[in-house]
């Protein structure tokens, strides 16, 4: 527990100390210029935290955030000027409207992937600024909108007051977002980024989470916009265009994605740096520090051979250029933008995780901060309730068909999987096994036929809906949430544990539940022998461990039917033996299993019944030993003897 306290003090302490320090600045510094910059820093901090939700957590390039800042700013401004509302109302309305608009934009736009999503948000922002500009009767168009800064509850806000207000809101946003992102919501956002398919298959609705994440990020943009309006007190549509968006994206990438600190540091960079750069002396100091750091990092990286020469040397060269430039150029003013871009390169190339991504690793090592300790695992029985192994038909396929163009991958399969059985599905490559389970689990819609669970039709073509019926699966090509830790992978999928509603999560009142979830997840990790790897990132696990983790994750769904798609593929011998043990343990709990497998030894050891597919059709079915001797099966595996005359 000592480690826990140390961590708590260091991590929370840094936050509190940072906040206190920032809050104390107006007591010492009365320079309105400095105060103005810090106010802007607080506002941009909120803005970038919002942007990071989409860019960092959802992993989507969002080029519409500047527009939400503008919409928020105008909403707040108009609330005060046209509606005659006060600042509190304005600061509620602005994020609320942006939440709604963000949700509406996300509904259709998030179906788009990658660059197309980026371009959709870009065209949205072009549209938004055009409308603000053209709707002159409301927004005064290009002439700009003057916004007063109304008193709050009768108290007029001077510059330090307003700064404290912004800082307080930043602290509030920081706290709630920290709570949210550490909860199942944050995990779901990240899971979505790494594998939408698995997210759906684990019963976490991808679409809903995407929309909410986007709307949430947008609403923070709106809140920042409201503050922005009262800070500058003059709004103009041209402020919220592409150029600002680019700066915001740079802030997120520079600071480091997926991190509140990263967003804040990014904000500091884009707000303070340009102004610091115009002071030559400061500029020289900064670039010299940068050069020293880059040389040090490069030297270390090269000596330990952890970085490639280019990656190590690029920042050194960039920083060297900066130092040289600062000595040569008389007026840094003209070169600020180029300098900014140079720094950007060195970060993008040298520190792919951004400044805070790098700093976090460094600090963790420096202060030897241990990750928070884990609770004792829950009992397996409480996590995986036993199912009665009745031998009754559980899953029935009736004339199931799935065609791809002209290829009949599954061509009329009928079979019955009985409760409590391990049902093997074998056949040569391309015989339709994987397609069959993909249809069952809802990844593909069937082209014909039916899938019945307990005699009732399963939903078609939706992993998410099928997952809701107690069917869980693993994937032939691993679909782990690579950036998440092993325990988080399992926690994403946990069923029937999370009940605390969103408002309480935001307030940080979900600790007990999180702890219970961790205990449950640990029990499952223990089952597959990964308890000591709980904190490791999934993508850093060995291949075998990744396979086992997928099984543990699927079990978190408390499935009645578990589909294992080639769990042994690529496993070395000891791992394969371990796999057999794990499957047997799961089977003992009464979970019905469909096992696709090539290794006949595994199949014969585990399966009660084996169905053999070839060319999308069933060619044999029965106990493993019988099936193995079936001449049709042998022929399917070893190939037919080619008749000589045909070959001629």
């Amino acid at each position, binding site marked *: 527990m000592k480690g826990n306290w140390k961590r708590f003090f260091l991590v929370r302490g840094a936050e509190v100390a940072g906040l206190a320090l920032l809050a104390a600045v107006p007591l010492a510094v009365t320079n309105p210029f400095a105060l103005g910059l810090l106010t802007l820093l607080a506002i941009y901090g909120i803005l970038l935290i919002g942007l990071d939700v989409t860019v960092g957590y959802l992993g989507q390039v969002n080029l519409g955030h500047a527009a939400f800042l503008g919409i928020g700013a105008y909403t707040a401004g108009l609330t005060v000027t046209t509606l005659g509302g006060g600042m509190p109302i304005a600061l509620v309305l602005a994020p609320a409207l942006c939440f709604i608009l963000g949700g509406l934009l996300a509904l259709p736009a998030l179906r788009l992937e990658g660059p197309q999503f980026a371009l959709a948000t870009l065209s949205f922002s072009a549209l938004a600024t055009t409308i603000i500009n053209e709707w002159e009767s409301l927004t005064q168009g290009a002439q700009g909108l003057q916004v007063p800064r109304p008193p709050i509850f009768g108290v007029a806000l001077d510059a330090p007051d307003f700064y404290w207000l912004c800082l307080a809101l930043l602290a509030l946003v920081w706290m709630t977002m920290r709570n949210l992102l550490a909860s199942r919501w944050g995990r779901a956002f990240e899971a979505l980024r790494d594998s939408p398919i698995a997210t759906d298959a684990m019963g976490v609705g991808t679409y809903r989470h995407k929309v909410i994440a986007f709307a949430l990020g947008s609403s923070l943009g709106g809140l920042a916009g409201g503050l922005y309006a009262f800070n500058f007190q003059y709004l103009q549509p041209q402020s919220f265009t592409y150029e600002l968006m680019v700066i915001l994206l740079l802030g997120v990438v520079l600071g480091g994605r997926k991190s509140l600190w990263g967003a804040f540091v990014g904000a500091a960079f884009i707000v303070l740096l340009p102004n610091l750069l115009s002071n030559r002396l400061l500029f020289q100091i900064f670039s010299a520090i940068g050069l020293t750091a880059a040389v040090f990092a490069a030297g270390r990286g090269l000596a330990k051979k952890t970085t490639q020469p280019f990656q190590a040397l690029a920042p050194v060269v960039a920083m060297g250029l900066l130092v040289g430039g600062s000595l040569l150029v008389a007026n840094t003013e003209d070169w600020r933008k180029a300098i900014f871009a140079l720094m950007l390169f060195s970060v993008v190339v040298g520190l792919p995780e951004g400044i805070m991504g790098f700093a976090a690793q460094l600090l963790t090592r420096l202060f030897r901060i241990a990750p928070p300790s884990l609770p004792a695992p829950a009992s397996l029985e409480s996590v995986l309730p036993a199912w009665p192994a009745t031998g009754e038909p559980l899953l029935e396929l009736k004339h199931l068909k799935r065609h791809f163009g002209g*290829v009949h991958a599954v061509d009329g399969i009928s079979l019955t999987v009985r409760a409590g059985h391990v049902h093997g599905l074998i056949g040569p490559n391309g015989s339709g096994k994987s397609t069959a389970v993909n249809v069952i689990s809802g990844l593909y819609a069937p082209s014909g036929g039916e899938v019945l669970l307990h005699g009732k039709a399963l939903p078609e073509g939706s992993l998410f809906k099928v997952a809701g019926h107690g069917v869980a699966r693993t994937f032939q090509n691993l679909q782990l949430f690579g950036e998440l830790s092993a325990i988080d992978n399992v926690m994403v999928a946990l069923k029937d544990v999370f009940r605390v509603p969103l408002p309480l999560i935001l307030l940080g009142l979900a600790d007990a539940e999180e702890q219970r979830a961790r205990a449950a997840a640990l029990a499952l990790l223990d089952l597959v022998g990964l308890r000591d790897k709980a904190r490791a990132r999934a993508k850093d696990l060995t291949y075998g461990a990744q396979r086992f983790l997928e099984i543990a994750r699927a079990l978190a769904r408390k499935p009645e039917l578990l589909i294992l798609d080639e769990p042994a593929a690529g496993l070395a*011998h000891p791992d394969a033996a371990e796999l057999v043990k794990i499957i047997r343990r799961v089977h003992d709990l009464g979970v019905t299993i469909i096992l696709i497998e*090539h290794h*006949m030894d595994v199949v014969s050891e585990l399966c009660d019944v084996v169905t053999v597919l070839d060319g999308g059709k069933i060619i044999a079915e029965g106990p493993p030993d019988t099936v*193995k001797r079936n001449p049709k099966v042998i*022929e399917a595996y070893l*190939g*037919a*003897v080619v008749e000589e005359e045909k070959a001629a």
Partner: protein
Amino acid sequence: MTTDMLRVDNLHAGYGLAEVLTGVNLEVKAGTVVALIGANGAGKTTTMRAISGLLTPRQGRVVVAEKEVQGLPASRIARLGLAHAPEGRRVFGPLSVEDNLLLGAYSALPHFFGFHGRAAAELERVYALFPRLKERRRQLAGTLSGGEQQMLAIGRALMSRPKAMLLDEPSMGLAPVIVQEVFAIIRRLKAEGITLLLVEQFAKSALEVADYAYVMERGRIAVAGTPAELRQDERVLAAYLG
């Protein structure tokens, strides 16, 4: 000629943290067909990928026509005379059949004008082997049936007149009748004297056409021998059906 057209010594390769190949040795003599068989996940396809450069080997040597090629980019290895018809065929769907074939001869042909004349002979040779492709020369490759796509993949590999050719799972996902057709083609290629390393899960069919065969198990060669020897070997059946 009994020189090795392709030789692999102590090949190690893998993906990420997983080491799939743990020391593979094999050789293919000029003008012979060698089969590489074994259960799924044994590392057959990985072996092919490590030979052709799609996957950089971690250790070991790959020699094509007496040149060491390990570590070279796939395109260099291809230009040195190794053709690889990959698993899953990988034809270029949005391109026409003929475009796919012409690309097969990419390194041998001029890149702008006059390639049609130079390619005509090769095209005729491939079309003679696969009359169906000739019928469908203008069709987009993505719209072909599985068997036709396999023929296209083989034909495309042949276009460069390779010194050695890797053919990975030509029967995958094909109906039995089509599989027989594919093997008939392999026989004709053999008759033409092509040097071929064939990965195939249909062991019996593969053994029918091969001069020599290797059986892979968990990342290394478990058994090697002539088809006649292997047919007698219990371990081969065991490798498949446990």
